[in-house]
């Protein structure tokens, strides 16, 4: 059940991305093109997701722990730092340039478009570079 629940969640997430149009970079870029061929559809994706997730999370977290683990793994930070804003700003530029964010890019990978085949490995490299950059920072601080 542990494995099946996670597999099901991934499948559901990917199907949602495809159905919503998020896995189509042209649609994402049109959503972001307010002064051109604007397509407001994707506002409904975020709206629909939050409409379900907000009450769902509230309900689930009334339980002491999740079904298969001893505790919820929730972010605890509430402070603002430069990393959060600079990181989000950098992410937004990439999202606008390619029309892909991480979930849709992975979902679109089996479709084998040339652009996707360039985007996904580059994204993985970006993740590894950022991870090494942030962990070495932590090491330096510890010394």
């Amino acid at each position, binding site marked *: 059940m542990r494995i099946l629940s996670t597999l099901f969640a991934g499948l559901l997430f990917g199907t949602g991305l495809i159905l919503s149009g998020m896995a189509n970079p042209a649609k994402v870029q049109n959503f972001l093109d307010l002064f051109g061929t604007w397509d407001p559809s994707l506002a409904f994706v975020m709206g629909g997701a939050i409409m379900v997730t907000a009450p769902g999370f509230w309900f689930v977290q009334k339980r002491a722990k999740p079904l298969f683990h001893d505790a919820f793994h929730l972010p605890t930070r509430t402070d603002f730092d430069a990393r959060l804003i600079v990181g989000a700003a*950098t992410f937004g530029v990439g999202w606008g340039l390619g029309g892909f964010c991480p979930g849709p890019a992975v979902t679109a990978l*089996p479709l084998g478009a040339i652009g996707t085949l360039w985007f996904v490995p580059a994204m993985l490299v970006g993740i590894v570079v950022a991870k090494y950059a942030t962990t070495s920072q932590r090491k330096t601080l510890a010394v």
Partner: protein
Amino acid sequence: METDFTPFASLLGGVLIGLSAIVLMAAHGRIAGISGILSRILPPMVDKAGLPQSIIFLIGLLLAAPLWFLLTGAAPVQVVSNNALLLGIAGLLVGFGSVMGNGCTSGHGVCGISRGSARSIAATLTFMATAFVTVFVLRHVVGG
């Protein structure tokens, strides 16, 4: 290139994404943030406990398009630029930025906002703003 306005399909797709986030939270107590899930399977390994479930979730994500094809008889509609340089740079920025900023559209934009996290609201407003500006520059300043 224009795309059709699809409020109902997009809303329903959003609902499925939300249900997936609830399943992951209820079963494993984890945020359905794809950049976080991807980063957990890549070096340097920090969160080894989350590794197996991350791999399984990604397999589910990769199976969605083939399943869509089996059920509908058609591949999902998509138009992706063939510009290798553009997509390569975009991928680097997306990967780097989402790990640096602790989340992407799913972790901050859906799960974080749903939890009422001020950090996620700030991050979402920031990446939406730079994405709007980027597409404006790409399509209306540099050329379309």
